[in-house]
């Protein structure tokens, strides 16, 4: 019983991490049609900013709060300077964002060296339920992920910003004709997606520690999750992330980890092949 509970918690917490990382990726892919290869590096930057705050002696949570804003601002600038040129060609966008990611990743590698730098958990210790112990920080991540998910959903579905964003996605020329500044909306969407990646990086760095390939580790899982969930909506990629995260965490409990690792990808690609629109088809929220 206790074992099953611990396993369930592990699976849930890994699923939450994947969802957190995919949120930004999914918003950028769904709303803008760009598969952002630099997303992993935005996660890395979020983690790096958190580490910097810790290394400077500031409380860790200040870094965690600052990370989304700084990474979001960087995303806004990059969109205006570079990403904007790629909208017409999705493959070129992949290559361009890959180059961007390479620059960011190698710069961070230069800054931190080849080390694994640990950042302590801001909320340490464990939560005890009877004889079972679960990590307090992982539990916090699950809670924050849920909050961020609900927050994003409300932002996109209930606010005028979200409405304009969706309008820009569905019919850019009509949106422009209605007086919505589509370039600004694209910039804001990209910045928002980057900020979510920054937040994800800040939250997961105590769990995985900081190293240069931290972001890229999740990138392909993220892409697969977005495709499985379905590009075009907000909820699709989140659902995909839930499925992929849960599967990748759950399968190693029942079979050899190597087989499980590969099986998740094979299943996902086969699924996308036969259902290209993904789990949840359609545009909108």
């Amino acid at each position: 019983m206790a074992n099953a509970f611990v396993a369930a918690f592990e699976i849930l917490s890994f699923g939450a991490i994947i969802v957190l990382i995919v949120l930004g990726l999914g918003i950028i892919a769904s709303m803008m049609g760009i598969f952002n290869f630099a997303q992993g590096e935005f996660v890395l930057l979020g983690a790096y900013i958190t580490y910097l705050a810790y290394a400077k002696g500031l409380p860790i949570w200040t870094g965690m709060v600052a990370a989304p804003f700084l990474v979001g601002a960087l995303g806004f600038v990059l969109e205006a300077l570079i990403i904007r040129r790629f909208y017409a060609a999705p493959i070129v966008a992949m290559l361009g964002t890959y180059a961007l990611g390479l620059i960011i990743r190698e710069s961070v590698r230069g800054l931190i060296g080849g080390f694994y730098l640990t950042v302590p958990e801001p909320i340490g210790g464990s939560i005890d339920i009877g004889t079972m112990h679960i990590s307090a920080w992982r539990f916090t991540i699950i809670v924050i992920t849920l909050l961020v998910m609900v927050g994003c959903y409300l932002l996109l579905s209930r606010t005028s910003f979200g409405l304009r964003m969706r309008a820009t996605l569905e019919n850019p020329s009509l949106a422009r004709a209605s007086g919505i500044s589509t370039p600004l909306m694209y910039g804001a969407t990209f910045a928002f997606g980057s900020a979510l990646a920054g937040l994800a990086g800040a939250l997961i760095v105590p769990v995985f520690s900081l190293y240069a390939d931290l972001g890229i580790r999740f990138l392909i899982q993220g892409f697969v999750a977005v495709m499985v969930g379905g590009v075009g909506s907000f909820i699709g990629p989140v659902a995909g992330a839930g499925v992929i995260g849960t599967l990748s965490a759950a399968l190693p409990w029942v079979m050899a980890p190597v087989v499980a690792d590969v099986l998740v990808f094979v299943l996902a690609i086969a699924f996308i092949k036969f259902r290209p629109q993904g789990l949840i088809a359609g545009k909108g929220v």
Partner: protein
Amino acid sequence: MPKSMGAVKQAIPAEIGGETDAAMAERETAAQAAAERKILPFVEGVALVAALVAPFVLQDYLTVFATRVIILALFALSFDLVWGYAGIMSFGQALFFGSAGYGVALLARDLDITNIFLVLPAGTLIGLTFALLLGGFLLLGRHPSSVIFVSLGTLTGSYAADRLARGWYYLGGQNGIPSIAPMTLGGYEFSEGPAFYYLVLGILIVVYLLCRFLMRSQFGLALAGLRENEQRIAFFGYKVQHLKAIIFAIGGAIAGLAGSLYAFHEGFVWPNMVGVVVSTQVVLYVLFGGSGTLIGAVIGAVIVEGVSFWLSDNYRDIWPIILGLLLLLVILFRPLGLISFVLGERERVGSFGAKPKETKEKRNAAS
């Protein structure tokens, strides 16, 4: 000369416009283009001569490095066929390169097969088989796959193979398979050095000429049309997905050949060889050199590897950053790669079919 350059520039938008415009532009520029068309053979000739004399000029350890570069150029060629000619973004080309490398390494380790006439065909066959399987799955089917799906599918395949190689004890796990026995021909062992270099160069030249022939045939013409406008080619009655699968398989076979040579040259294989790192490396080569020209892929591989070798002594840390910056600049401002500095669009697209000259003369006579 400036006048002819102008004429060629005019021809570019006309060609995109449609067949009639293209035919008209062709008539106008036929004479100038004949003069222009000499650049590509010239570049190829220079590259060939440079490659032939290299071992005499270079020191021994540089010849070993040059051999590696030639193998990687062969690998770049395979990606160029798939992306530069057919417009299929294969982010997982290393899957075929690396799996062939692992395959021949296993042949050498477990079965003691190192005969060159067995291992190289075996490697090619492994690459071909994997490419047929993956390409067939990704590209064929009732609904045409989106470009995004194909590129992410190949990327995922490569990543999954990397993870499998890392975790599978039989394949050596993280360390890969070390100290592969050298390739043999009868009693002769190919070890690093000039002999290996010329072997690899010979293979590259043969493959290059085959590709050149293929890309200048009707098949190549159909591929170029596919890259420019898939729907139009489909309306012409071509089975677009079959064309794609065929070129993907050919690319996989060449990558497999390169991979088996690489495994024997380096003497070991390791998980990165099937993974995303090498997959993106080959994308870099072709983008730098110039996709859609065979020589561009070769030049790209030579330049990227050469510069990184040269810089890695002093600037090891910042070289990847410079590489990223350069790549970004190339994508933004020179999407056709470095070769486009010397090669016009007219010549890059080139002429197709059996006897382009005759038809052109007829057309000229008609007008």
